[in-house]
């Protein structure tokens, strides 16, 4: 059997397959379809300081080979998350990475601090794609200085590994990636959704009440693979690659571009067993191609890959 284990930002993972934040709730729902312990890690829905109700519906709309979502960060807030969701997640048998969101710089830091002491949290994923209320709603993640402030703020409040999740809606991802790394991010996660929109011609208005939504699914995969390829050549931090991963072959594209781990998101909605199949498919592929350890493939298609290769778990 090929070895799929990797050490990612200090976390020992059974395999490099995670869940994409916001597509997997807090693990309960898909936990009824398969054992979460078979995953490399579980990444939770984004958590904010206070509970958030989210946006009015419709919140999702299908697009060619993809979908838009405008959930609006509905979540119970960090306290209730710790009380009501974390206990069962701790039993999942896979490291738990909590996705941290916020609308002000301070909010991120507060949430990070609270999770630092909660116990059973393996790492934090800082989602800088949220609209920045301090600065008129443009996402934090498009400005390197703001990213540095947010990440630095979290860095000071926790010793947990920090993974910064980048938005692809920028001219030059490498600038943002460097800002996150310089501010203390241990790893990066990319990509979050592309901004998109669908208009209903009969109603003569956008389908989503908030007009725009985040595009995800197989449609965005080429953009995501390129983002990983580019960032993996610019910074020497491990990367979680995601965006349209639905099969083991998709996962391999990200891994060979330079990702040490991958996450399955929208594909869960198509097939609840998608992540399990990616894990099994990676093992089978490695077997078939004489690869002993998945880590060997990290960056294999990227001559400029800066490293590091993941550790052998």
């Amino acid at each position, binding site marked *: 059997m090929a070895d799929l284990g990797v050490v990612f930002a200090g976390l020992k993972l059974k395999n490099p397959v995670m869940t994409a934040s916001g597509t997997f709730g807090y693990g309960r729902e898909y936990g*009824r379809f398969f054992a979460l312990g078979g995953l490399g890690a579980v990444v939770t829905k984004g958590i904010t300081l206070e509970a958030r109700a989210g946006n009015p*519906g419709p*919140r999702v709309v299908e697009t060619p080979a993809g979908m838009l979502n405008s959930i609006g960060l509905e979540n119970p807030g960090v306290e209730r998350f710790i009380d009501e969701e974390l206990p069962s997640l701790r039993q999942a048998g896979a490291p738990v990475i909590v996705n941290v969101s916020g609308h002000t710089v301070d909010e991120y830091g507060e949430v990070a601090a609270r999770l630092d002491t909660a116990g059973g949290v393996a790492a934090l994923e800082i989602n800088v794609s949220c609209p920045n209320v301090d600065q008129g709603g443009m996402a934090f993640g498009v400005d390197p200085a703001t990213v540095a402030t947010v990440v630095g703020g979290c860095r000071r409040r926790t010793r947990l590994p920090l993974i910064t999740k980048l938005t692809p809606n920028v001219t030059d991802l490498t600038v943002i990636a460097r800002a996150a790394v310089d501010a203390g991010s241990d790893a990066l996660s990319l990509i979050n959704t592309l901004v998109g929109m669908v208009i209903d011609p009969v109603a003569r208005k956008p389908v989503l009440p908030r007009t725009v939504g985040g595009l995800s699914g197989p449609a965005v995969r080429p953009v995501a693979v390129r983002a990983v390829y580019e960032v993996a050549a610019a910074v020497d931090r491990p990367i979680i690659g995601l965006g349209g991963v639905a*099969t083991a072959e998709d996962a391999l594209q990200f891994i060979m571009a330079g990702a040490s781990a991958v996450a399955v998101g929208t594909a869960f909605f198509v097939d*609840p067993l998608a992540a399990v199949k990616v894990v099994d498919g990676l093992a089978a592929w490695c077997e078939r191609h004489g690869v002993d350890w998945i880590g060997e493939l990290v960056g294999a298609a990227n001559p400029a890959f800066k490293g590091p290769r993941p550790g052998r778990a």
Partner: protein
Amino acid sequence: MPSVVRAPIRESVRVVGGPDGRIAGPGMAGDGLGLFHRLRLQAPAVADAARPGQFVHVRCAPPGQWDPLLRRPLSLHRIDRSRGEIEVLFRVVGRGTGFLAGLAAGDEVDLIGPLGQGFPTDLAPGETAVLVAGGIGVAPLVALAEELAAKGAPLVAAAGAQTAEGLLAVESLGKAAGEVLTATDDGSAGHRGFVTEVLAGLLDHVARPVVYACGPEPMLRRVQAMLAEEGRRRRGYLSLETRMACGVGACLGCAIRQAKPGTAYYHVCHDGPVFAAEEVVLGG
């Protein structure tokens, strides 16, 4: 919500019968489509666990094809535990239902189910179930009628549509409910007017009605209003539709506003699709 979520089952099931397409008369469907189909599926595990009002989430593209991407939710139209079969009844509105309409006996279908909360079916002594269907909304009510009838619960049913051709599955409904009062917008069958007008008549005559409604949103709003009327609130349940991604409660995509002031959203796939009428804000 009262009922318990059962573990959903994902199976590759086989088409047993159908699609037995039926073209509704012209003008039936707003978009000019108006083609109805029924599929009988060999799905023993789903049939075994399913309750009326629950739904299945059906993949509408061949494996490995990503367009259309998302599954389509369809109510359980009939549940035949003894034969291990379920039926869905659907209107072709777009690519997903169009795909399903092209299936033939023996084809495989990838579905997840049963999902969501079904209709509460425990009636107190003296209560009578009043089923109200609008158009394709009849789909889940047939399964409900059959379960209520099997329990020996008192039961009346009304079904409305734009024209007589749009009155679907009235025979099945009638078999379980005894009689079905009908209404059509154009008077081509039954009462000329809305089915909610028929409901009003029923509510006047039935002592302790428990209403079960499924149909277009304007109809459900009207039912909701009627149930909340004049201080004499009546028990009633609505089966709702929203756009869905996961269908299992993970994506939070299927939000519908809770009626409780200040609070948040229910999720139709997980907390519904059936809600007590007073719990939700329609169109919210």
